[in-house]
């Protein structure tokens, strides 16, 4: 699992030769490369490595290791990277509970951490930190967007999520913007695989819409069973359950579903076109939102490296905070709590030939900020 990818191995010409500080930089990437959740980590790693390769920056060295989606292993790897590999920056974690295990201790040791995914509310508010940059989203954002969007068409919604903190954050986020009536609010078991009992309740509830947040395999199971059950109340959810890593396994059951995301492959900007093309060419598959966020994280780091030395922490933090890079999500700036201010879009699942993918059908929020920034004293 350890790939030391010295970018110098790659033969691309050094186009960005205006680098102000030609010193070697070590970036520790802790991500999930084995077990059931490995797909997300693989996309994260591939996009990150590709961005580094394309930049032609020969001074960046990546230390990539697998956390097996276990918090204890992630903590141990972070310690190893900080104490033994002496990395300058940390990034890569996919899951909120692993981020909560690693980030508070790493940033307390004055290590800069950039989150390519996962933004637990606990790190966005009172416990925010100048060394913690979230390049993805605050956990509530996508759900808030769906709540906002639901106001347009729906009056009675049935909502469900797993019974754990991210699940509760999700429903809280949805309810923060949704004005209609809730005809059901159900918390399912973490790792649950059969949703027949919940689908029967949905059928019985008289709802005009269903909102669900069930990441990974849970969402695949739910969507398949929901489509098979013949219940035809429209469903919606955050983009996690309708992204490129998951759609092939859900199949046509996902067609037409509205979902929210900060990114889509048809987002019309130059950086995004280049990213999608490059990713497809290199790995022969479509990128997911995790790949997009990871690509942005890599480019943000590269932009800061061209302005400041990574050894000069204050200058480097300022360079990061300026967010002077071409985001595949278009406009991208950091809020006072180092979390993104960005648009959140509504997408619809469509078919292009044989391939299921998304297209943008609307914008739920423009320049959206998270709800916790005010509590952050930084």
């Amino acid at each position, binding site marked *: 699992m350890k790939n030391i990818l010295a970018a110098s191995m790659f033969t691309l010409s050094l186009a960005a030769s205006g680098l102000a500080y030609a010193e070697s930089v070590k970036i520790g990437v802790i991500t999930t490369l*084995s077990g059931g959740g490995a797909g997300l980590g693989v996309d994260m790693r591939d996009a990150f490595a590709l961005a580094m390769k394309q930049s032609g920056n020969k001074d960046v060295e990546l230390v990539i290791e697998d956390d097996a989606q276990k*918090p204890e292993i992630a903590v141990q790897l972070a*310690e190893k990277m900080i104490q033994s590999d002496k990395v300058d920056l940390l990034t890569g974690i996919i899951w909120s509970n692993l981020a909560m295990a690693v980030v508070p201790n790493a940033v307390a040791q004055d290590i800069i951490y950039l989150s390519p995914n996962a933004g637990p509310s606990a790190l966005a508010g009172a416990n925010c930190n100048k060394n913690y940059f979230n390049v993805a989203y605050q956990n509530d954002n996508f759900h808030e967007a769906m709540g906002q969007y639901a106001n347009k068409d729906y009056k009675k919604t049935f909502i469900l999520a797993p019974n754990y903190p991210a699940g509760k954050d999700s429903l809280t986020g949805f309810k923060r913007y949704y004005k209609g009536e809730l005809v059901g609010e159900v918390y399912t078991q973490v790792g649950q695989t059969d949703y027949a009992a919940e689908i029967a309740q949905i059928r019985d509830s008289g709802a005009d819409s269903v909102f669900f947040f069930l990441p990974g395999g849970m969402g695949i199971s739910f969507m398949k069973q929901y489509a098979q059950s013949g219940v035809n109340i429209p469903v919606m959810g955050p983009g996690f359950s309708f992204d490129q890593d998951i759609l092939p396994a859900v199949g046509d059951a996902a067609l037409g579903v509205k979902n929210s995301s900060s990114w889509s492959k048809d987002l019309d900007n130059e950086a995004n076109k280049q990213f999608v093309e490059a990713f497809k060419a290199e790995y022969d598959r479509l990128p997911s939102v995790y790949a997009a966020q990871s690509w942005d994280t890599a480019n943000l780091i590269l932009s800061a490296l061209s302005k400041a030395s990574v050894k000069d922490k204050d200058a480097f933090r300022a360079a990061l905070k300026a967010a002077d890079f071409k985001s595949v999500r278009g406009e991208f700036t950091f809020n006072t709590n180092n979390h993104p201010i960005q648009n959140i879009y509504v997408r619809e699942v469509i078919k292009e030939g044989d391939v299921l993918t998304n297209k943008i059908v609307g914008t739920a929020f423009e320049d959206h900020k998270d709800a916790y920034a005010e509590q952050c004293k930084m």
Partner: protein
Amino acid sequence: MSRETIVNIVLALLLLAIPLGASAMGEQFYVTLATRIAILALAATGLNIALGLGGLVSFGHAAFFGLGGYAAGILATHAFNAEPLFFGLPGTTSMPVIWLVAIMVCGLVALPIGAISLRTTGVYFIMITLAFAQMIYYFAISWPAYGGEDGLSIYVRNAFPGVNTAQPLPYFLICYVVLMAALGLFWLLRGSRFGAALQAARQNATRLSAVGIAPFNIRLVAFAISAMVTGLAGALFADLNRFVSPSMLSWHMSGELIVLIILGGKGGLFGPVAGAMLYVLFEFALGGITERWQFFLGLILLGVVLFARGGLLGLLAGKARHG
């Protein structure tokens, strides 16, 4: 001196020498790795009291490991936020107090669990202990007050009088001393009349009842002591990672503790130490070589069961340990 004693002494010195050397060379990470070994060995030593001496194969000791961890996490969080716990009691960041609480909580929880579980034997015992651990696991995931699945961060490592616990080496030394004390306890228990009765209960419970000793009581006490030692390890583990989460309570953790004992050689005093050393080194070294490390870890474990009966100690000390 028997060959096993020599092996034990070598293992004890090795576990001490490596972090001392690493620290001298400025390689702090290897000190952390050795601390992890010491704590896992401590947890497995706790389990070894029930499993090795009493023949009680508990597949639910992660429950106590996690409870100990949560005792540390919850007390520290309340102290950090200056919120009283309950009945107006304050939290604390003092390790000795936390250890005491962890030990007491685990003992109190182990008594009812043991009392019910010990009515069963064999595979039923394995499974009922698993069931209790799963109950606590699901409770911890869904209980919102202390972070649920996200777990609980300890922002500053708890304090021990006169020791700078934030530094890797002093913290390792604390864990090492506690491990040696637990091994001493195991040694004393094994040689005591209580230990003799416990081992007799494993070999022939009927005969033990015939001489007027109730095997149930003996086993229950052993189970509780075993849980308390594992709980103490949990508290240390939480402080090592400065983090506690439900994954400490998962059935994988219970399985790993059993693996450590068999890997090292069950029943042997230093079996858990040898097992923990081997396991952590495999995990670390394989992880450095390949992304498929779990595949090869599986192959190695399989090889140990099939071809190295008696575990590492059995290999080193020459003869297979019996039961």
